[in-house]
């Protein structure tokens, strides 16, 4: 069973869909997660057909959460 398949929470799936939709619609999005591992899993979930670039992972001073900007690369 893949790592992603173990995440059965609907909210997690819903969040993933939302950020992928936003990425495709706006050409960029900012991923937010409480842990580094969650963030990298979100990146892994971006469809393989998308060519994208990522920025540097930033950590919040206030709550320790992680964020990462993702931009679609136009063909």
């Amino acid at each position: 069973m893949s790592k992603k398949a173990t995440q059965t929470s609907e909210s997690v799936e819903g969040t993933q869909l939302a950020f992928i939709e936003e990425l495709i619609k706006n050409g960029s999005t900012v991923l937010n997660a409480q842990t580094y591992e969650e963030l990298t899993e979100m990146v892994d979930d971006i469809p393989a057909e998308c060519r994208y670039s990522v920025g540097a992972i930033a950590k919040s001073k206030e709550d320790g959460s992680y964020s990462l900007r993702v931009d679609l690369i136009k063909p």
Partner: protein
Amino acid sequence: MATLKGQNLRILTIGDQGANQVIAMATSCTITLTGNTDEAQTKDDVGMASKPEVISKGWSVQVESLDVTDVGAMLTAIKSMTKFLLCWDEVSTTDNQTAETNTFSRTGEAYLADATFQFDNRTNSTKSVQFQGTSALTHDTDLPATTTITPSNTYTKGQFVRLFLGSDNTATPATVVAAALSLSLHVSLQLEDSTTKDTTGDYVVQEPVSLSYDISTSALVRSGESVGSLVGGKGLSDLETIYENSTPVKWQIANVSGTNNRTKGSVIASGSCILSQLTINAAVKTNATFEAQLNGYGEYTVGA
């Protein structure tokens, strides 16, 4: 009349959708307007100084920022020679973001001509970008409405972005530069004055001609231990081997995590490089260090 404080004069970018946004987390900006004069001195001039005459005008903008989350987007923009629509303006003191269309506000097209990203150990990473104007400046009284950004309070500590180096130009680099202290990625778009007799007005028109980039890093020299087994990376002897081979090697700059901050996460950029300079510093009562200067070879790839 109050003086204007630096935080209330900002550079904004106007995007395709008309969004007008400040460059995030900027710490300073410099705007330079240049009047180029020609040689007009003759023997007919009386006195010591000739009368200068402005024959063309150019402008540039430099911004320093603590936001490096857009490093991928900036590397893509400079590589694809994207023109930006920039403006500088006084911004509201309530949010330090909303453009107020002051009389000194100006708007114009510019190339992102130079970008440096600095990822130093235990330090907030920095971005320094320079834009070179390629159009006339205008004072727009109807600037697009400013889309304010949410202050992120997010910082990228330099130890979480690392340089991976290969041993040749084929395999994907798997190991970091061990015991590294600093990392700098500098990309430059060379522009050429392309103003001709056809050009209307007196502003210089620029056209991009080539791209170059270099990477520099510094690290501690380790003694009497296997750097590879201790911290999982390339040490001075590996860099010396690369130097001796004089051949390109693969590089990657990536987000890292895990033990010794060496587990590769999302790749920010990658390519090939030549080791052009290796400096070993050994001062008394000080940790010995080495600095490697790597010149980009071919085109870099943004993202994975």
